[in-house]
């Protein structure tokens, strides 16, 4: 069980890293007028995000719904690291609740 939790969580967080960095590269291309190569690589990174997601041992809806919760937590972490916005108490409490929700959805033994 522990191994499954660790491996699936790693895949989820790796996927969110790919999604955010792929999106960021596309952003650099269109908003910061960097070369097309940024857009191209960004697109490929986003494609690989979709491929990584297929490694999860569950059905599509459950995998993507759980990923939404991971994305919530990643956004808060991203805000802290990149925007230097320290999460306030309710962001931390809310993230905790989100994690409980996805734990029920993805990890509760059926």
């Amino acid at each position, binding site marked *: 069980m522990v191994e499954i939790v660790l491996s699936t969580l790693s895949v989820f967080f790796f996927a969110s890293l790919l*999604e955010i960095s*792929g*999106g960021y*590269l*596309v*952003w650099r291309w*269109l*908003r910061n007028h960097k070369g097309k190569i940024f*857009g191209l690589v*960004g*697109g*490929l990174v*986003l*494609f690989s*995000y*979709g*491929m990584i*997601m*297929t490694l999860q041992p569950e*059905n*599509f*809806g*459950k*995998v*993507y*719904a*759980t*990923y*939404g*919760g*991971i*994305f*919530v937590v*990643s*956004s*808060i972490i*991203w*805000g802290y690291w990149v*925007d230097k*916005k320290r999460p*306030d108490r*309710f*962001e931390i*409490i*809310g*993230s*905790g*609740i*989100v*994690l*409980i*929700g*996805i*734990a*029920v*959805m*993805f990890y*509760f033994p*059926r």
Partner: protein
Amino acid sequence: MYIIEKITELTWEKKSKNYLTSVVLFFLAGLCEIGGGYLVWLWLREDFSFVLGAVGGFILFLYGIVPTFQKIHFHRVYAAYGGVFTVMAILWGWLIDEVQPDNFDIIGTIIAVIGVLVIFYYPRKGEKVWSK
């Protein structure tokens, strides 16, 4: 009650147009992300042709373009997107992939949405939700 007042106040604010555009863009982004991901999924998990996977990859690329139209950039807004995304994914799995979510999927989704509501709507002193 405070939350309802706050929402009403926000809806009537001048920024309500931005708000609507932002919500529509997030919805569109979610559709591209889930739709593109689904086509890639069909390719790798359900043995559909690579062409479908490549189209999915392209839609994921389009997903990357959508947020560049967003005027509001705020990590908390993206957190809210995650919540919307969760609900959309459950619905997609149910209606399009035709796998019915079980009770724990539904309960988990509801708990996650409550968490997002705490992050997004819990009133903070002297702070507007839609700060730039």
